């Protein structure tokens, strides 16, 4: 699961002091300068449409000017068109090689485009040229974080804070790296240090997500005040609501927690798009398409290095990965975008959506896709022979992954559906997971997951194993042994002491997997009848 907050779209550094910025417009007619200033102001307000309009007016007079190209690139980035952003920013950079601001913008756009390594290179150059620009270091930290280079990211945030100790986002991200390292107390202290600062609302959520940390009485009172204050914006009320619900839970005030949680979820749900019926139809289509396993040219053992962890959010997948990654032969790859990317590219190539192109895929196509996945994930096998991939979309594509990589193994993390759905409902995700903000959407999603996993289980019994969370908690050793045996791994006692494994964990379960297994993670009994609508929708009562 993505760490909440770290995936916020970067606010592209449009620039700093107005006087300095005006220098960048030199050589342009006054009119074009005015238009570019207007575009820049619009970008500061994140109003891409207005910026686009201003740029269009300036295009004739200034279309080849580096500042025009830079602002154009930022606009495309904000519009969610990172590839075009990168192209424009590269052209700008050709005209002003080594310009720190352009390099910073390019780096953030490259990160958005998914090219993390190139992003790091561009941002490193920006920091070399302008070592006192906090935005450069901050964005470098984010690119390094995306590339999984948490240690270097930590250092970059330190540099950002050296340049600008009041940089709230850099401080939150800095604390995030501490949490990923497992330095929970330091991370908590760092989050607490920014509470109440403008723009630091996310810090409340970060503390709430440290399941092992409790809010103080004063913090709870402040959350209550923020939640009901008419001046709190809708976005902030969502964040504060999720944190306040956690605070109420800690105090055993579950009735209030439920009301606050429901209110916060309802607001969030209005701001995301989700169509449960459409999603169910997609699952129908997948089951129809894979009614017969596609023929593949992949040799039976292709992909035996890969252990796919499939699950809904909050059902023990981080724990399962932590156990596996404690084994000397296994690297924990976390949520990898690669399988999704390989399938997306095939959809683009065929001009059809997944799974519509599946019937026409040839045996060689499957092999090619499988090899492509292995190539993209080679870095996880540098030190150890096997690796895990726990991307949240894996459960929908088991059939495709089986055709690509018949040697792969799938561990399906199951947990009591009421607990899973409640746990998702208690969480605000930074992006995606739009189905988690309504109990009925969640129930429908769980039902889709359940029926599709049963389908895969029946189809590929040798390759899919259900890892039931409640059983794991009940009988850790028996379950861990069975899990390792299924994966073809020798038993190793380190897997039972997974909480000691020094390894970076990026998901919201980061703090939990640093502790031995707890038997008291069931929350549904605390909410009792308040979960009736969820139980009805799940059909479990």
């Amino acid at each position: 699961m993505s760490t909440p907050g770290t995936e916020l779209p970067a606010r592209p550094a449009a620039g700093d002091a107005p006087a300095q910025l005006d220098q960048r417009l030199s050589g342009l007619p006054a009119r074009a300068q005015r238009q570019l200033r207007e575009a820049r102001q619009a970008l500061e307000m994140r109003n891409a449409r207005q910026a686009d309009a201003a740029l269009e007016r300036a295009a004739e007079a200034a279309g080849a000017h580096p500042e025009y190209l830079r602002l154009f690139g930022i606009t495309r980035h904000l519009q969610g068109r990172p590839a075009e952003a990168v192209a424009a920013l590269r052209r700008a950079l050709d005209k002003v090689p080594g310009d720190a601001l352009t390099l910073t913008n390019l780096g953030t756009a490259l990160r958005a485009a998914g090219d993390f390594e190139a992003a790091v290179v561009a941002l490193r150059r920006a920091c070399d040229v302008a070592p006192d620009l906090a935005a450069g270091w901050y964005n470098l930290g984010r690119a390094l974080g995306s590339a999984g280079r948490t240690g270097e990211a930590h250092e970059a945030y330190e540099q950002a804070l050296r340049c600008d100790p009041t940089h709230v986002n850099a401080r939150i991200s800095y604390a995030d790296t501490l949490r990923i390292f497992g330095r929970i107390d330091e991370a908590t202290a760092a989050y607490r240090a920014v509470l109440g600062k403008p723009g630091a609302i996310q810090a409340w959520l970060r503390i709430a997500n440290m399941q092992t940390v409790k809010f103080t009485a004063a913090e709870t009172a402040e959350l209550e005040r923020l939640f009901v204050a008419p001046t709190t914006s809708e976005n902030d009320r969502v964040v504060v609501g999720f944190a306040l619900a956690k605070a109420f839970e800690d105090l055993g005030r579950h009735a209030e927690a439920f009301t606050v949680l429901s209110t916060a979820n309802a607001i969030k749900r209005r701001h995301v798009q989700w169509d449960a019926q459409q999603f169910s139809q997609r699952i129908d289509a997948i089951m129809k398409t894979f009614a017969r396993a596609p023929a593949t040219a992949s040799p039976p053992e292709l992909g035996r290095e890969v252990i796919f962890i499939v699950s809904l959010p909050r059902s023990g997948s981080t724990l399962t990965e932590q156990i596996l990654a404690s084994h000397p032969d296994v690297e924990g790859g976390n949520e990898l975008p690669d399988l999704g990317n390989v399938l997306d590219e095939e959809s683009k190539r065929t001009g059809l959506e997944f799974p519509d192109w599946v019937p026409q895929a040839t045996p060689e196509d499957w092999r090619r896709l499988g090899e492509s996945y292995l190539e993209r994930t080679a870095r996880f096998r540098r030190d150890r022979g096997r690796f895990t991939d726990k991307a949240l979309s894996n459960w929908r594509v088991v059939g495709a992954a089986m055709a690509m990589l018949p040697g792969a193994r799938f561990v399906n993390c199951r947990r009591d559906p009421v607990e899973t759905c409640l746990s998702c409902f208690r969480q605000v995700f930074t992006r995606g997971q739009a189905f988690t903000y309504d109990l009925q959407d969640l129930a429908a999603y769980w039902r889709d997951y359940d029926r599709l996993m049963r389908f895969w289980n029946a189809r590929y019994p040798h390759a899919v194993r259900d890892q039931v969370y409640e059983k794991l908690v009940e009988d850790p050793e028996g379950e861990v042994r069975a899990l390792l045996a299924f994966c073809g791994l020798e038993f190793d006692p380190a897997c039972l002491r997974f909480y000691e494994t020094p390894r970076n964990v990026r998901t919201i379960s980061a703090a939990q997997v640093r502790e031995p297994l707890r038997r008291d993670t069931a929350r549904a009994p605390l909410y009792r009848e308040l979960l009736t609508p969820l139980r009805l929708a799940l059909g479990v009562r």
Partner: protein
Amino acid sequence: MKEHATAASAAADADGMESARSAGQPPFDRAEGLSPSARKLLADVVECARLRRADQAEQILPALMALAPAHPEVLRVRALVAHLRARYHEAASLLKRALEERPFDALGWNNLGSALAEAGDLEGAVVAFRKCAELAPQRAAPWFNIGNALDMIGRIDEAHDALREALKRDPNHVSARVTLARVLQFMGRIAESETEYRRVLGAHPESALAWYGLSTLRTSRFSEDDVRAIERVYGRPNLASEERIGAGFALAKALEDQHRYTEGFAVLTAANSAKRRLLHWDARLFSQYIDSIAGAFAQAPASAAPPDHGREVVFVFGLPRSGTTLVEQILAAHPEVSGANELEDLNRILAEESRRRGSPFPAWVHQADPSEWKRLGDLYLERTAAWRKDRPIFTDKALSNWGYVGALRAMLPGAKLINCRRDPVENCLACFRQSFAKELGFTYDLAEIASFWRDYDRLVKIWHQRYPGQVHDVVHERLIADPEGEIRALLAFCGLPFDPSVLSFHEAERNVRTASAAQVRQPLRADTARAGRYGALLDPLRAMLAQGALGIR
């Protein structure tokens, strides 16, 4: 407050009319005169329209129009696509052209009725549906559509008759029976209404809309068996959002009836959240609007209206579920008073004035001169003259009136202004328990209701300050505790002599189209306070109403 019109918003029913020509005549060939290739294209468009795939239909249409641009059936299918695209005026004009050539086409009239209804011309829709009913006299669908449209424009008695016609032709027409039950509710025939809902549920226990309708009767309790039946509906996967919402509100009511308040609240919360997503509301913008009203009327505008101008009007206002229907029912039981319910006239007059001046209310308030206020008052009296035909005085309980007190004082200084107040937690909870008609966006989120209540409270306090003695508060809790005393005070404020019939207001015969329709048919109940049953679940609401005061609990 108008009741949530679940069945009413459904697209007009058209079952089995594809080939009906007119009474006793054989079906006609709709594609008569078209070439085989045009026939094929036509069939494809019809199929796309049936599947509601406007994109695909629009890809085929140009070729069809090239082959037979003026063929009536081509015009009709173009109208179907325009309808899917929500271009209702265009659909209506295409259908009118088609019907000029084929005035015998029952289906075309039905399509025209639907298009007109969607375009907001419900009167026109009724005329078109009636043509359809004439041409296809055996069909239930046109009668249902007539009844549905009449219900929406408040012609309750005629709606009732039309729905009976529909059910005579097809006793199994579920939507017609659900709508009939609703109409009976508005007519005060609560027992019959319940019977009709139960009849639908006997045959279709999975009908979320019938359960919902039954729950709105408020006066009858759901049994444990009912709870289980509604739970089954609620737990069905892939419910359409309207059904999901209806089943949710109904289940919440049923659980409450069984004293299972915690579960009821949880279900209610989910139903409100789903409903809220279908609506638009901006609490911040609304607060700014209320601020601007308070600012615009900082000084009472000078008016040329004489002091007793408008003394034939009693305006009753307040939040939804604050007792406005009850107060109107009490007043309307008086022999000199008609209850006009929620009139749109004041809203329309002010909107027209805003359009004329090119700026929104209340931005133009300080520009209006004394004679203009009088003119607006005259306009209101003129538009509402029908309500004074039988009795000299009438009530207008449009809920938005609490925002217009300043304007009303200038337009109609003689009008009586009654503000219905109720305990805020009870009032907000009562709103939350209700699924209203579409236009209310603020009652489906506790934070938004609380914000709305604060806006209301703030502005009404300002009115009291600016116009001392001019606005009479009827406090719901006091009315319950001492009906006679409060009713006497109310009548005295309105300048009406006491009449004993107002004490038995629940026996007054009139149509009531609000959520309180069934409740006002009963004597006053002292047990309408509910908030206490929900315990701490409402503490966040209390905190929000207290505007963030610390240490609530």
